[in-house]
Each structure stands twice: as C-alpha cells, then as structure tokens.
C-alpha cells in the first residue's frame, strides 16, 4: 500500500510572531514542530504499512526551514520526503496550497491513500484536506479514526454528531485523520539512520510544472485584510456568606447563566 502523508510545520502556540506587513507567520526552527494532527496521520500510515507493507512518502509546502518536519517524519518511519518550496508559493491560502500539494502529488505519482491531519494548530481551517481531494478529484472522508482493509477497499470509522459511522471507500482516496494515537518518539538510531540514509527532494514551481497564477497570492481565493490579537477577559467573583449561602448563590448564578440546562 502506497501512502502519501501531507504534513505542516507549525509554530509553538506561545511563540507565534506575525509579520505586520504580510500578516504571515514568522517561522524559526527552534520553536517549530510538526503539526500534532499530522503526526496522527503519519502514525496511521506507519501502522498501515506494517500491516500491508508498501511505502510512505511525506509531503510539505513551505520555506526551506520546513525540512525539519520532514526529517522528523523520516525518523518516525516515512520512506521518502518531498519539500515543495518556492518564494512564489508564499502567501498561499488553502486553495493555492491545495493546488501546489496536488501538483506535488501528481509528480510523486502512484498512491493508494493520501492522509492529512484533520486540521492544524495554527491556521485551524481544516480546509486543505478536502480541497486537495477536490483538486485531485478523489473521494474524501474527514475525521477518520480507524482504517482497515486491503487494497481493493477500505473500511473507515469516524465519529460524527455523536454517532460512530462506518464508511467504505475504494482507493485512491483521501482521508483526514482525527485519531488520537499515542505518538511515538524516534530512537537515536532512527534519527542517526535518517540523516545517513535519506535525503529530501526539493521541488519548485518549475519542477512541478505549476501555473504561477494558481499559487501564492495570485492563486488565492482569500487573503488576510487585517489581524489583531484578541484578549480573553477573565474575572473572579468571591461568594460571600457561609457554605450554605455560598452554595445557594453559586446555584442561582449557574441557573442565571443557563449552565445547568
């Protein structure tokens, strides 16, 4: 089974810095890591490969620094890594990103499954997976928790609106993954071997034979007009009286705020 896993480098929540002129994220290697939801997707791919053999390619779009997450994915069990990197890709929204990823996947060629994290911890749109499926004209199942099956057909479990759904899909297909598998750490041997045995393919616009009007800002259907930080206001109210009175006040406040319905 040949699987492609799309991953994204995200910046640690407390280290987010925004470039005020472009409203895009400022990335640094030290405080960036692989999007945790993508790790679930990668783990699912590793399990599927264990059961059915085959290969795992990881794919990301981003500046050169995004290589870091590809090395991490290789150490965790991927067999091939591709970085789609070109200054013209910057400022891509989810639509343009899906186009670039789609072109990358066309160049990789053969696959049975594409796995994406359900969402990212930074952009948090949950759009790239489904848009990529559209781009490649593939069936798409979101928030998959479990995948079983052979090459001909996959049985997929997902939880939606309080129901556990079982779906069947024929390959090739795209899944966004929501499983909460415990994520392994690579051993030192895995890390050492990754750097001695693998390299990363880096493809730019020309390598992908991509249309410059479909990438970056020109290819984006949306763009950020403004960005201001929000603050969460918290207030603390002390309840007065003895325990019984305090309990009564608390109860009436909870009812008042409709929190006990």
């Amino acid at each position, binding site marked *: 089974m040949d699987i492609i896993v799309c991953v994204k480098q995200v910046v640690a929540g407390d280290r987010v810095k925004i470039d005020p002129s472009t409203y895009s994220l400022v990335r640094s290697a030290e405080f960036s890591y692989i999007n945790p939801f993508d790790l679930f997707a990668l783990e699912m791919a590793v399990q599927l490969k264990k059961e059915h053999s085959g290969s795992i390619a990881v794919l990301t779009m981003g500046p050169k620094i995004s290589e870091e997450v590809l090395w991490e994915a290789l150490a965790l069990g991927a067999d091939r890594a591709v970085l789609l990197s070109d200054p013209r890709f910057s400022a891509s929204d989810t639509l343009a990103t899906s186009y670039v990823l789609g072109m990358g996947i066309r160049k990789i060629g053969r696959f049975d499954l594409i796995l994406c994290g359900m969402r990212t911890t930074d952009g948090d749109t949950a759009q790239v997976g489904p848009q990529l499926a559209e781009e490649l004209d593939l069936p798409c199942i979101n928030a998959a928790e479990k995948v079983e099956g052979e090459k001909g057909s996959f049985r997929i479990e997902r939880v939606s609106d309080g129901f556990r759904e079982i779906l069947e899909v024929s390959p090739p297909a795209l899944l966004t993954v929501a499983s909460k598998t415990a994520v392994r*750490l690579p051993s*030192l*041997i895995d890390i*050492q071997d990754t750097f001695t045995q693998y390299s990363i393919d880096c493809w730019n616009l020309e390598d992908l034979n991509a249309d410059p009007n479909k990438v970056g800002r020109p290819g984006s259907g949306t763009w950020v007009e403004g960005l201001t930080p929000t603050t969460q206001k918290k207030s603390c109210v002390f309840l007065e009286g003895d325990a019984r009175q305090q309990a009564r006040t608390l109860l009436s406040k909870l009812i008042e705020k409709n929190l006990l319905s």
Partner: protein
Amino acid sequence: MARQFAKTELAPIAKEIDEEGRFPWEAVEKMGPLNLFGIQAPRQYGGAETDSISYCLVIEEISRVCASLGLLLAVHNGVVVHPISQFGTDEQKARFLSPLVTGEKIGAFCLTEPNAGSDAMAIESTALREGDSYIVNANKIFVTNGGVADILIIFTSVDPGNVKKGFSAILVERGISGFEVGLLENNCGMRANPVSSIILNDCRLPKTNLLGREGEGFKVAMAALDNGRIGIAAQAVGIAQGALDVSLKYAKERIQFRVHLAQHQAIQLMLADMGTMVEAARLLTLNAAHVKDRGDDLSGPSAMAKLFAGRTASKVASMGVQIHGGYGYSKDYPIERYFRDARATEIYEGTNEIQQIVIARELLKRGED
C-alpha cells in the same frame, strides 16, 4: 526527541522524585528503547554510535528538566559504557556492553573511597591474585547510580605495596558473593539518583574481568573521566538552562511595584548575564565534544568545559533564586531544586580545583610559539 521525552515523561515527576528520593523506574524503562543508555556505543552492541555533539545535546535536554536522570545517563554512558567500549576485550564487550546499552543493566563507576577522593592514588582497596582469580576488597563511597547499578567498574590495586604500579580497573556484577550495597547518601541535590556506597568483601572475580591490563587502571580512569567530564559539563549546561527557563517564566509572571519583574532593569541585567553565561558554557562544552570527535587530546578542553559549566550552573541557579526572592527559597518553586542540583557539578567527576590543575598542566605543557 530528548527534549520531548523530558517534557512529557520527566517534567511531571521531577519535583516528586526529588522530594521522595525515588529512582523512577517507570521513566527509566522508557529510555532504553530510545537508545539513551548507549548514545555513543558501537552499533554492533546495540548503541546509536552518535557523535559527541549529539551526546551533549541529549544530556543537556534531560538535565534541563531532571538533573538526577541527566546524571544517571552521563555516568552510565560517559564513564561506564565508554571505557568498556575503549578498553574492553571482545568477550567483555559481548558480556557487559550489550545489556548496558539496552538499559537492561545500569552501570556505575567506583573510584572514590573514604580516604581517597581527588587523590586517587590513596585508594586502599585491594585485588589479590589467587590462581585465575582476584580476591577483591573495597569500600567505595559516593557511587552515582550505586543503589541500582548492575555492572560496576571498581578501581583497586593488585599491588597493595605499590598502589601506583598496581592500580587496576575490574568489572564487577551486582549480586556476586561478598557484594553489598551500602547506605544511600542523603545528598542535598540529585536526590532521585541513588548515590550509595558499595562494599566488596573477599569477592572472587575471574581475571577475565580485568578492564585493561594490570597497572593500567589510572589510564582507564583518566580516559573515562576526560570523556565523562564532557557529559557532566553538558549536564551542568542543562541545569543552568533549566534554571534560566524557570527564572524567565517567573520574571514574566510576578508583579512587583505594579509591573512584571521582567520590566525592572535590575532583573533584566541578571537575566542577560545568566543567558550569556549559559550560552558560553554550552559553546565551551560543544567545543570539547568537537575536539573529542576530531580525535584530539581531550584533557584540557573537557576540564575547561566542566569547570566553566559547573560554575555557570551554580551561579545561574543562585541568580535564579535571587530573582525569585523569598519564593526562590521555598520548595514550592523548582528553582530551589536547580540550586541544590547545580552545586554537585562543581564537585563530582573532578572538583573545580582538580580541573584547574589539569588545565594549568595542559597550558604549561604547551611549547612556546
């Protein structure tokens, strides 16, 4: 990986295991599969065979969160696995290295005695030849990992009349007849590491347990310590970085005179000095690692790294306590643990003064340009 491991597995227990003086087997067992017990050991025996830079980074990240386990790894890898890899026979490597590297067994290095610390030649332990065996008697103290160690390198003399000539290293396994783990030390820091005394009473050991040749013990000890000091320097850098981490956090939280501590210039000056010292200690340590990887003489650079990093850990932790004020003196905040842990790095694996002797000797040895 090491940073992630420390964050998820060690950070939640670091305070508790220090308070209870408990060796956290549940976390230690998870370190073996990550190759943390054989960081630089040969692949042939299951090690990761990394360079020394990677070794330092691993020890630093573990120590940044839990110095006691940083110490476990620095001693196990630096002064047990390393000298066995360097001086062991093939048979010894197969027998001792393999289980050490997987973490199935834990190593210890036993040099210090009640009357012999910095003055290693004052040891009183003996290994008397008897046929194909040695009869070993020893009273070793301040043995890091002592309470849990399975394979120990014991420094002794095969010639009690002439310790210098007879100075030898012998591999001992826990549990042999006459082997006894003494009381655990009630140390002020590194409390989750079971530092203990080790007593050998008429232990019969085959001559095949000799590490290196008879009389080569000092060479084994010095090679181990030159190497081990890089690990201890990395441990000290980790402690200093950890102390800086918690101090930065506190300075951004605590409000005095209506502003955060971090906005007071007096605090900023301290933080700037702390950050600069940590970075300098780190670079000196990585330089020693680089010198080792290049295959050059390690004594001077590793002694400099250990001296400077140890002092930095103590100084930075002490400044961290100052930033915390009264809370820094309380066990409710982690800085006091860093403060206690840091102090040991100026003492073990060669005190500051021993490092100075080594450094001066190396400097004076150099010819003039």
